[in-house]
């Protein structure tokens, strides 16, 4: 694959037409300079490393330990970031102090529980029991604690069941939410006290408490000790508070110093991680003294890569330099287009359908113009075009500002496509002038209208119509049509025919692109048995239709083109009668029909047989003249190239060709019909805008009331912006997209390549963990 190169002979190769020529390169780096080398290559960003250790799990690789350390560092840095963002929002405790804080609040809530517990204690029940029971010698124990409120009912029931009712439980609601010491979150809780008798009951209750996540707190029976505990705890609390405030100050200072270096650290860690990941893709030499890496790089980058390697060797004081060599391979190289900020968005539109096969003709070359053009055919209004232009100029003007900051999803999309929108708006101003629509209003900008009344009284203007007295209106649609009764029939006929003409032109362009592809890949079969019959088929039917449309316009004939086209197939021998547009039309039609019919088997049959023959010839040649190539082929084999003669399944090739032929023949009809969407959408656009103008603005004007007029203007502006400028732009965009992806690109575009993804540090931002 790599040996295919060079342009089409006469002219220099066109930028963007073909993806950059790529080569598979091998880099042998001594161990000691490997890290620096990869780092320099990452700065350069023009080498896509191949994973040579794909059979090894991440843990078996050479630099697994380093990656682990990087991961650990990244975790720490993330922790700092968390802490910083927390501190930024509200100066709360850091991790260490947070735990202290938590225990403090836990104790605080404990006090509360004690207070509530005291209430419980004051209930006469306990005293009663105490007073009644001492004779029985039953030791009545109790547990106190907190249980989540939503679980409290179940908790009580389970306790009751487990002890067969031999307990006494009291619960009380705590009004404020309590910080849970386990999770650190605030939760609504109940305080409970359970009285029980016997050790077995105690152990059961303890288990249940654990199961429900109820925290128990020690609680003394004697009032004196309770008071003592209270003072102790509040003393501790005060102490902790001072500790926390001191800690907060300390933490703030610490975080500020971290904050200064945070970005730097973050970048460094990510860079290191990326470097070690890449180093892991390199395979270790048998001597364990150097690393061997393979990867794709553009041919033009060879010297830059070599320079980087040399620089790395010098900077790392390595005794031996790195070795750089180009490998030969049969593998399909990645696709790499060098785009600039203008062409990127258009290339992305094409890539969204499929990444071009290596060195395949790139539809973007024409899409840059035809995409906005077809959009504008559907969006023809120079008022709306100017609005769009102003909006996108705003984006382009503040390009520097916007590109450095983070934008919302929709804004991001609009900003990314700002040059697409610029082209779209320029073309829609042009087509708007052609359609003669400015917010649906026509202006006689270029000349007076070509039509006038038949006589001085103008009596027939509403019945038979006006008459053409001057030359045709020189640029665009005559303004006189606006608002007339025959406006729609005229515009429909015009726009429908225009859609077909533009469609046939674009489909021809697509087929011509397939010719450039065939020529570039030196495939005579594709020229003679694909390009030529396809051209003939399309142009004998729809090219002929286009010519008929133009002839009809030029001669002013009344012929019915539907009738001509339909009866060209149904009864080609029949006389055309009044539908004849030019002499010998029948003979011409018969010839075209014959050519179209012949071109179908021409497309279908020869190609598979020729491919088979070519394959056989190649196969024979291989079995003889092998010997002198063995060395190289062996080397290619060891380099992991998917070398070997591919299987040739004739039936598969034939079915593929059959499908391709059927697709093209049916597609010629359906794609032509598909271009009628240009007509439909441009009609919808002009009708909508004239409805908004007449039914809102003109009607509001008619009331002669300033208030209604203001409301009317506001409604008009919102409808124009919301419906015409946003929704219609979107729908016209999508339809233009479809016309390019399907109707244009299916004529030549394979789109089964994969994108060149070099190892680089610039895109580090969206690298995932």
């Amino acid at each position, binding site marked *: 694959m790599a040996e295919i190169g060079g342009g089409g002979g006469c002219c220099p190769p066109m930028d963007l037409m073909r993806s950059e020529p790529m080569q598979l390169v091998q880099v042998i780096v001594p161990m000691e300079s490997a890290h620096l080398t990869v780092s320099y290559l990452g700065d350069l960003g023009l080498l896509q490393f191949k994973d040579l250790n794909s059979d090894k799990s991440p843990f078996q690789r050479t630099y697994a330990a380093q990656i682990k350390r990087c991961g650990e560092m990244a975790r720490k840095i993330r922790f700092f970031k968390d802490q910083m963002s927390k501190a930024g929002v509200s100066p709360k405790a850091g991790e260490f102090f947070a735990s202290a804080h938590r225990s403090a609040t836990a104790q605080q809530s404990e006090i509360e529980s004690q207070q509530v517990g005291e209430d419980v204690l004051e209930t006469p029940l306990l005293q009663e029991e105490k007073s009644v029971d001492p004779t029985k010698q039953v030791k009545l124990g109790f547990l106190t604690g907190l249980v989540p409120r939503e679980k409290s009912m179940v908790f009580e029931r389970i306790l009751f069941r487990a002890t067969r009712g031999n307990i006494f439980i009291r619960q009380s609601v705590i009004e404020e939410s309590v910080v849970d010491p386990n999770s650190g979150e605030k939760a609504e809780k109940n305080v409970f006290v359970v009285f029980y008798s016997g050790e077995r009951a105690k152990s059961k209750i303890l288990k249940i408490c654990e199961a429900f996540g109820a925290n128990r707190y020690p609680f003394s029976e004697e009032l004196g000790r309770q008071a003592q505990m209270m003072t102790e705890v509040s003393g501790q609390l005060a102490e902790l508070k001072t500790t926390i405030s001191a800690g907060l100050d300390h933490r703030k200072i610490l975080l500020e110093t971290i904050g200064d270096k945070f970005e730097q650290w973050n970048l460094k860690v990510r860079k290191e991680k990326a470097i070690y990941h890449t180093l892991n893709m390199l395979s270790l030499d048998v001597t364990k003294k150097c690393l061997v890496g393979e990867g794709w790089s553009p041919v033009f980058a060879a010297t830059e890569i070599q320079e980087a390697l040399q620089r790395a060797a010098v900077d790392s004081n390595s005794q031996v330099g790195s070795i750089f060599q180009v490998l030969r391979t049969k593998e399909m190289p990645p696709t790499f287009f060098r785009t600039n900020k203008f062409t990127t968005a258009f290339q992305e539109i094409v890539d969204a359908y499929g990444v071009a096969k290596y060195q395949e003709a790139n539809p973007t070359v024409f899409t840059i113009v035809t995409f906005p053009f077809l959009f504008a055919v559907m969006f023809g209004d120079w008022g709306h075009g100017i609005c769009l232009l102003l909006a996108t100029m705003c984006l382009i003007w503040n390009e520097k500002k916007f590109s450095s900051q983070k934008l919302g999803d929709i804004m991001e999309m609009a900003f990314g496509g700002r040059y697409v929108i610029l082209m779209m708006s320029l073309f829609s101003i042009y087509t708007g002038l052609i359609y003669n629509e400015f917010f649906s209003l026509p202006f006689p900008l270029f000349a007076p209208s070509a039509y006038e009344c038949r006589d001085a009284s103008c009596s027939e203007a509403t019945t038979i119509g006006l008459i053409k007295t001057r030359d045709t209106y020189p640029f665009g649609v005559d303004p006189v049509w606006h608002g007339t009764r*025959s406006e729609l029939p005229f515009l429909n006929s015009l726009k429908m025919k*225009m859609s077909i003409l533009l469609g046939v032109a674009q489909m021809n362009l697509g087929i011509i692109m397939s010719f450039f592809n065939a020529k570039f890949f030196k495939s005579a079969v594709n020229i003679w048995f694909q390009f030529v019959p396809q051209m003939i088929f399309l142009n004998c039917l729809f090219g002929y239709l286009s010519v008929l449309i133009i002839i009809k316009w030029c001669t002013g004939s009344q012929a019915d083109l539907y009738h001509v086209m339909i009866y060209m197939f149904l009864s080609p021998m029949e006389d055309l009668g009044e539908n004849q547009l030019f002499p010998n039309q029948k003979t011409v039609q018969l010839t075209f029909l014959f050519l179209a019919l012949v071109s179908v088997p021409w497309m279908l049959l020869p190609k598979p047989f020729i491919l088979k023959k070519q394959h056989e010839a190649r196969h024979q040649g291989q079995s003889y003249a092998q010997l002198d190539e063995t060395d190289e082929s062996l080397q290619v084999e060891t380099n992991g190239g998917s070398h070997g003669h591919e299987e040739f399944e004739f039936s598969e090739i034939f079915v593929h060709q059959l499908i391709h032929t059927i697709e093209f023949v049916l597609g010629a009809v359906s794609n032509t019909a598909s271009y009628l969407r240009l007509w439909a959408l441009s009609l919808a656009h002009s009708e909508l805008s004239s409805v908004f103008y007449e039914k809102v603005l003109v009607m509001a004007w008619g009331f002669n009331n300033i208030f209604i007029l203001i409301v009317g203007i506001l409604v008009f502006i919102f409808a124009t912006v919301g419906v015409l400028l946003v929704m219609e732009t979107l729908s016209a965009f999508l339809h233009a997209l479809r016309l390019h992806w399907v109707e244009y690109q299916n004529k030549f575009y394979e789109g089964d390549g994969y994108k060149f993804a070099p190892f680089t540090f610039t895109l580090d931002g969206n690298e995932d963990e």
Partner: protein
Amino acid sequence: MGFLVTTLIFVAVGVIASLCVIICCNRGPSTNLLHLTLIITATVCCWMMWAIVYLAQMKPLIVPILNEGE
């Protein structure tokens, strides 16, 4: 202004734009070829659009019939 004259104007505009691009931002033959292609495509598209609308109005089969209300 007939069909041919305006077509010639389109051709002239296309040629002038091509020359401008080649002279003003000359960035090597490959890039120039891309720019030329873009300009030629744009000119052809615009010309086609104009030509279609012009031809359609040359020999009118339908004439404008004014609305009763006007």
